[in-house]
């Protein structure tokens, strides 16, 4: 697991939003901004970012993954830190970018420089900024899903739990299958939907047996998979990204696959901050 160096005063942080959060659920991005600002960071959102290149990389198309990685490396240079609200996209940047440029010393050096500065959101908040949420309440029994890349590539396990422990009212009901893959796997769930569904069903059944009200996690892909299946099954378990809960913004956005009726704009919530 990464160890932080000396943290500068009010560090500059580039938020790498991730393509899924950008399109599907901006409220996670705004929750991340809010948390980073509360932790004392200056947050920037570099405009030329798009996707980290993981879909192509995992499909074996290293050439296009390299092209995208070069663009991301350019976009994210010059900030003290880069923070990503997703374990798998953070893992792509931290673990796989340097491998992509194994045969190119100049780009490899740049990829390694980015790798050292990049952090998954919960890990950054806890391990680097020593952040603890204050005055947030979330009165629910939570089952936490440890997404595979964050867990096994980056060692993220305690950080989200530590953040949730600082939120009043939370109780974590650990599932035996917390660390089991939900069956999302990027293109896996599209190529092998039957297997993917059986995998997510097992996870959902275990969580339901445990009596949790909500499922939280740190990767929107997995959460969309779990929530999408829960919704199709007509189950009422709600699903949010951990950042939304820890930022106190869960009640401002309908849960993933939940009804929009109760939703007010996540943007206005952030906008009200001075």
């Amino acid at each position, binding site marked *: 697991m990464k160890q932080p160096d000396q943290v500068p005063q009010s560090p500059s942080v580039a938020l790498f939003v991730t393509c899924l959060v950008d399109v599907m659920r901006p409220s996670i991005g705004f929750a991340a901004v809010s948390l980073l600002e509360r932790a004392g960071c200056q947050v920037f959102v570099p405009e030329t970012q798009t996707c980290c290149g993981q879909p192509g990389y995992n499909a074996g198309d290293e050439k296009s993954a390299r092209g995208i990685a070069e663009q991301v490396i350019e976009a994210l240079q010059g900030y003290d830190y880069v923070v990503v609200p997703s374990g798998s996209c953070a893992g792509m940047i931290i673990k796989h970018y340097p491998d992509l440029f194994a045969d190119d010393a100049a780009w490899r050096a740049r990829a390694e420089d980015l790798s050292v500065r990049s952090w998954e959101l919960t890990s950054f908040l806890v391990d680097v900024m020593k952040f603890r949420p204050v005055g947030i309440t979330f009165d629910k029994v939570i089952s936490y899903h440890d997404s595979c890349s964050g867990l096994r590539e980056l060692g993220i396990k305690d950080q989200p739990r530590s953040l949730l422990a600082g939120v009043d009212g939370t109780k974590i009901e650990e599932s035996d299958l917390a660390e089991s893959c939900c069956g999302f796997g990027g293109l896996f769930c599209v190529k092998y939907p*039957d297997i993917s569904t059986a995998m997510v069903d097992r996870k959902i059944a275990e969580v339901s047996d445990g009596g949790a009200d909500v499922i939280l996690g740190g990767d929107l892909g997995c959460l969309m998979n779990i929530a999408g299946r829960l919704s199709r099954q007509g189950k009422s378990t709600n699903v949010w990204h951990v950042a939304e809960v820890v930022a106190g913004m869960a009640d401002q*956005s309908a849960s993933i696959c939940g009804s*929009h009726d109760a939703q007010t704009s996540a943007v206005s919530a952030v906008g009200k901050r001075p």
Partner: protein
Amino acid sequence: MKSSARHFPANAREALADERLQGVLDKFSDGFPVKRANAIARLDEFDELRDAARDIKDHVLANLDTYLKRFESRVHESGGHVHWCRDDQEARTTILSICRAANARTVTKSKSMIGEEIAINDYLADHDIEPVETDLGEYIIQLRQEPPSHIIAPAIHLSKEQVAETFVEKHTGRDPDRTLTDPRVMLDEARAELRQKFLNADVGLTGANMLVAETGSIAIVTNEGNADLTMGLPRVHIALASIEKIVPTLEDASTILRVLARSATGQEMSVYTTFATGPKRTDDLDGPEEFHVLLLDNGRSDLLGTEFQDILRCIRCGSCINHCPVYSTVGGHAYGWVYPGPMGSVLTPALVGIEDAHHLPNASTLCGKCETVCPMHIPLPRMLRSWRVRQVEKNLQSASSRYGLGLWSYLARHPRLYRVLSNCVARALNIMGGHRGKLSRLPLAGGWMSKRDLPAPQGGTFMAQWKNSRSRYL
């Protein structure tokens, strides 16, 4: 064994619809993984042993020719024979000629994945030699004429009730109305059936977990002792091994034994660990008169020096299979050939060809659990991805995947165009989702939408909202 790996999706669908199989698989993940975790918790130096085991095999693979030749010399010195077999066909004909020379009519077998790889049972049967599997699991699936579904637990796909049905049907000459529910009674019945076959066999065919270069010995582990009866009772013993099974010394073999059973079944040691060296010597009380070792390549030497070399460290413990969420969902037969799960999805394309096995490296979420439990530190997810790279190089991926990813990659490298389009898509889907906040049908999203709803985007993209909010409030 003929591969049906190209039919993986259909095989998997069949497995998912098989209620009995699903019942067995539901319990699968609670078995070996829990026992392994307990065994490892009792051994403080397990991680150091893993590193040492990996280093032993890396050293062997860098010096494979040296150790194989040393092994051959030692086998000769102890009075045995070594047969080099380039492929499965050579291995089959070599075994047949040894059996013919021994006038063999029956051959007992202890479990060997190489035996499955070269499909030796069918070949012997076609040449009027009866092969008899003596590992209980292999014996059961031989009665049922099924392939193994796991490399260490070949009949793991069957329930106790299915085994009882098979015994009642196949063990003729016993009371057909007997009840078989007690595993001990079933085991005794199988032993009684097998006992005479052990005694009658002309040739014993075993695998080998390791080949020890310094002594010319083969090492075999079992829990049933059947390998000992297979190699010790008949006049001729043939051991089948692939070339990467070699280790330099007995000390190295014992290092690997310390991680093998713990990783496989959670035992500290298998019940029987046997080292066999050469044929029966003058003063020995028992043992075969002839000792043959078949060294099979079958495509493995082609992996040396490639991005797939690390799979040759595999010691066939099955730990990656036991912890694989895909295997535990579809079982072993879906993979369509001898080796299932993560190690199989790396090895099968190498041995039967990526064209045939193209699904296997893709049928993984790359969750990474396999690598964390591999006692030999084999980077399985990295190699699954390497097969995908080869597929792209050979243009083997589907047209939809090629065009879809090509388009995505183009857009991702043109941020302005991407910004505009992604915002349009987000807004359109948001409107389509309406108050429900989700979508149940969309063109081109069948894979996802057949069993799941898609959450509707919340409105415009983050990037668009960010631009507006910051210019408004900052």
